[in-house]
């Protein structure tokens, strides 16, 4: 039959043309959680260590693929723990120490069998801290060949080297767009991007003859968005990834890509497969899914007895180049230029998908026309009822109305049912409801209200609104009366637009659609993070228990309200409503440090993640909200610890310099003492000239002042104070330091040559902290030269503009250089080669440099001696060319 039940009985039939949406992802995650929480003593524990933050799309794909790959095998009862080290944003020894302590506690009694590391930084971490994980095998991936040198024979280690396919992207760009003359390479300046930048530059060097290559490294997002929309013709963009820009703002690379792609006037190439669809044109050869699959297979083999080292280090394959059909069309790229094995996604959808709205509108017009005819026929029918035969009912009206699935009825202005279609009367019969022509629909609904029927009051309100002419049409959704929550209907009431009024009611079974949304709702309800569903206008449709807990509202107090109710700045600052609708089409946002307001008026710091989801029938917005107040507090704590460490470092330095300080103080004190005693003796004898005495006293005053300055400098250095960030001339800092260490160098017999660049951009930072860096490097250099002949003890302190809007400071000594063994650990705390050293200096130096978004490297100079180089970002807003 065509009655609604036919469909509804197959309530879970899903639309096969629907793309996998968040629904499936959410369900998968929920299933994964439940499997974790429900497990009782599993046989295997796999820890996935990743440097990416939680909810990074690539990670999600990877994790799912690993689980799926292991699940395909005979290995059962595998439990997974995913640890996000977030090192792509900030990486420092203290952060690593914290993770180490946490993992030690967490895995003390649950030794993992396998540790999967994603990325080079976490691999390094896992290898260094291997003891944390007991005898676990390490399976690494997402690393380059250079990251794993020497690991191929290491016991218990296997893994996959995956190339980034960067040069391949430009090859592809030139094949697709042979007139390309210029490429911009876009990357952030977080630790991850910085680590790969040299390799990237080396790999792209061969294009220098063919292309102008512009490097946009760490360009702030707002500038990027501007610049990428104004690129000249014959340009392509190569997107490497942005975790952090030079203003310190952090991003999820996929989301940053989406926001760039929206504005770009040139095609963007990128190598991650899941970026296809997020804004790149292609070619997505590096697939997290494929790597996850390979890693999963390796893990399963280890569980079934394979020795990890026997699996060795394998080069991950990468997938066929993949392209976005919409982008190809947009940039007029003929398909015959694509490689033979290319995969093209997002082909133009069919008529129904694109023009769904138009098709529905067309059908509606047809229906209304039919209704007009029906009304006309109805009148004629009434006039001719007496003499008419049964054939009269076989009218066009009946034909049209009876052939539609929706239940349909026309109402007179007073609510009397004039006519119904077949679907309506079938429904009425089955449900023994008196909804036949002649009955008064308004009265029926009123009676239902009396009986306390759910949703009846809303129905009455809508029907009366249209019958009274107050509204032209109304729409509402309700549950089937009397059937509990099993069926869901959507009712449209449309005015007939005639002088004498009346309305037509259509009722559609939307149980199928509603259930699919309901499953999303159930999934969202069970997510242990605060999550909301919004409609496209930003109104709250669902707020899960965490939201209610976090904000102190009950669900019903939030429903129907705008999100601004709890996140006031959200729509006004970040997403004005019209723009929000545009954003809905293309993807998501992460917004940091958003203020949320609780029911009691108190404020919380939030990270808000906004993601749109296209369901079959409509688009909804999934908002996840993370309370970062605690994280901010921890950040402040880390900052405080860092300052204390820095202070400790200065105290230690001051200790090492105490001899020099004593010297500096004792000189003026000697002057004062001699002058005073000489004056005393002359005055006692009465044999003096006034000029002599005056001269002595002015010298005493000068010496006293000088001693005071020494103490002042010492205090400045030892003062415990929060970092004071401002633009500084690094040359000035160097000169001040030279005054400070002058005597210390004299004692050590070391000469210091300055090569200060005249043309040095300012840097941003804390004066005292940066001076501490310089003092440490200079004193270290002096110590390094203790063993060389006095006349060779020369160091050079050089400043100069660095590569890519940076400023460099270099200290080169003439000592014996650094042994390869020491080179590996030189920046680690408590590492020292000095007999009396504490080994804190360089670790503190690095911590300070990194807190200034800079980096420090050391190397041995070709001429012998060690070179320490500090690179700091220049202070001006950087727009690299």
């Amino acid at each position, binding site marked *: 039959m065509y009655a609604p039940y036919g469909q509804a009985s197959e309530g879970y039939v899903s639309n096969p043309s629907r793309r996998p949406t968040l629904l499936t992802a959410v369900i998968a995650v929920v299933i994964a959680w439940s499997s974790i929480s429900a497990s009782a003593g599993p046989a295997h524990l796999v820890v996935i260590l990743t440097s990416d933050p939680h909810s990074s799309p690539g990670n999600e794909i990877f994790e799912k693929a690993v689980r799926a790959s292991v699940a395909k095998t005979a290995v059962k009862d595998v439990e997974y723990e995913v640890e996000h080290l977030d090192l792509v944003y900030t990486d420092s020894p203290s952060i690593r120490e914290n993770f180490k302590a946490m993992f030690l506690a967490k895995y003390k009694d649950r030794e993992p069998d396998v540790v999967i590391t994603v990325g080079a930084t976490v691999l390094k971490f896992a290898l260094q801290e291997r003891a944390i994980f007991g005898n676990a095998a390490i399976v690494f991936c997402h690393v380059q060949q250079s990251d794993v040198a020497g690991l191929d024979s290491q016991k218990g280690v296997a893994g996959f080297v995956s190339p980034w396919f960067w040069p391949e992207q430009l090859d592809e760009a030139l094949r697709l767009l042979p007139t390309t003359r210029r490429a911009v390479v876009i990357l952030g300046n977080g630790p991850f991007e910085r680590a790969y930048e040299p390799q990237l530059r080396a790999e792209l060097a061969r294009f220098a003859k063919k292309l102008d290559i512009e490097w946009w490294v760490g360009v702030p997002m707002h500038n990027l968005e501007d610049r990428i929309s104004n690129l000249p013709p014959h340009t392509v963009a190569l997107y490497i990834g942005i975790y952090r820009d030079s203003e310190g703002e952090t991003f999820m690379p996929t989301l940053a890509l989406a926001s760039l792609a929206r504005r770009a006037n040139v095609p963007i190439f990128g190598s991650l497969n899941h970026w296809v669809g997020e804004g790149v044109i292609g070619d997505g050869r590096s697939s997290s899914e494929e790597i996850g699959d390979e890693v999963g297979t390796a893990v399963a083999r280890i569980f079934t007895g394979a020795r990890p080292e026997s699996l060795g280090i394998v080069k991950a394959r990468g997938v066929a180049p993949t392209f976005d059909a919409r982008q190809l069309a947009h940039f007029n790229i003929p398909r015959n230029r694509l490689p033979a094995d290319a995969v093209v996604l997002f082909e133009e959808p069919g008529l129904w998908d694109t023009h769904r709205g138009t098709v529905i509108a067309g059908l509606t017009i047809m229906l209304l026309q039919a209704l007009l005819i029906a009304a006309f026929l109805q009148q004629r029918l009434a006039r001719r009822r007496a003499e008419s035969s049964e054939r009269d009912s076989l009218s066009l009206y009946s034909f049209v109305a009876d052939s539609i699935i929706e239940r349909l009825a026309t109402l007179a202005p007073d609510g009397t049912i004039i006519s119904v279609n077949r679907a309506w009367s079938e429904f009425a019969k089955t449900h023994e409801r008196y909804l036949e022509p002649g009955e008064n629909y308004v009265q029926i609904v009123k009676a239902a209200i009396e009986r306390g029927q759910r949703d009846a009051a809303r129905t009455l309100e809508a029907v009366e609104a249209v019958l009274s002419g107050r509204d032209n049409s109304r729409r509402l959704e309700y549950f089937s009366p009397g059937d509990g929550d099993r069926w869901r209907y959507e009712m449209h009431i449309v005015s007939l637009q005639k002088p004498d009024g009346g309305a037509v009611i259509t009722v559609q079974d939307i149980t199928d659609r509603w259930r699919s949304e309901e499953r999303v709702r159930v999934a969202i309800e069970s997510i242990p993070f605060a999550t909301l569903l919004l409609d496209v206008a930003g109104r709250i449709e669902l707020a899960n228990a965490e939201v209610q807990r976090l904000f102190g509202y009950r669900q019903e107090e939030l429903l129907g309200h705008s999100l601004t109710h709890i996140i006031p700045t959200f729509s006004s600052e970040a997403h004005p409503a019209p723009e929000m609708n545009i954003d809905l089409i293309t993807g998501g946002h992460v917004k940091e440090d958003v203020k949320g307001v609780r029911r009691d008026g108190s404020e919380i710091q939030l990270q808000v993640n906004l993601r749109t989801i296209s369901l079959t029938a409509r688009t909804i917005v999934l908002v996840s909200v993370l309370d970062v107040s605690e994280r901010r507090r921890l950040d402040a704590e880390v900052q405080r610890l860092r300052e204390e460490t820095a202070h400790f470092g200065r105290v230690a330095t001051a200790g090492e310099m105490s001899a020099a300080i004593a010297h500096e103080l004792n000189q003026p*004190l000697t002057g004062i003492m001699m002058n005073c005693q000489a004056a005393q003796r002359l005055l006692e004898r009465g044999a003096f000239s006034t000029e002599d005495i005056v001269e002595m006293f002015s010298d005493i005053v000068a010496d006293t002042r000088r001693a005071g300055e020494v103490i002042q400098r010492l205090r400045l250095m030892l003062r415990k104070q929060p970092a004071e960030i401002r633009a500084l001339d690094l040359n000035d800092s160097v000169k001040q330091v030279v005054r400070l260490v002058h005597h210390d160098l004299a004692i050590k017999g070391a000469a210091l040559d300055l090569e200060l660049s005249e043309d040095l951009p300012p840097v941003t930072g804390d004066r005292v902290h940066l001076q501490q860096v310089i003092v440490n490097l200079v004193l270290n250099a002096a110590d390094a030269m203790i063993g060389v002949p006095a006349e060779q003890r020369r160091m050079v302190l050089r400043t100069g503009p660095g590569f890519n809007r940076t400023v460099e400071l270099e200290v080169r000594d003439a000592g014996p250089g650094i042994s390869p063994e020491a080179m590996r650990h030189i920046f680690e705390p408590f590492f020292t080669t000095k007999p009396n050293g504490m080994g804190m200096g360089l670790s503190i130096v690095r911590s300070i440099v990194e807190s200034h978004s800079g980096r420090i490297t050391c190397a041995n100079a070709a001429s012998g001696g060690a070179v320490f180089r500090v690179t700091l970002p220049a202070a001006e807003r950087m727009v690299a060319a």
Partner: protein
Amino acid sequence: MSTGTWIALVDDDLSVRRALPRLLKSGGYETRTFASAQELLESGLAGSASCFLLDIHLERASGFDLLERLRTSGATAPVIFITAFDDDASRDRARALGAFAFLRKPFDGGSLLDVVAGALRGDPHDTERHL
């Protein structure tokens, strides 16, 4: 005071070079000052000095190096070291080189005059008190 008696002061610190001669003058001694070892050696006066007051931490050559140079060039006048650093190694070295005394800055003016007087008199090394 016999004519021709003068004290050579070598110190790289200007305020010491200004203040010390005043005290010595109040004790009746004439002083000539030099900012570095080189300045003293190049002056050609070292041989005629009656006593040397040498700072240990001079730029380039140290006070110890200077003492050795003076002895090789034939200057025999007693040497008193004055220093802002006080460590056993320096004292040992001063003693080994046959210095008359070792004074740590800042020192008492009276003591300095006593030590200088002792040195000029040709007393035995004042090791008990100052070395």
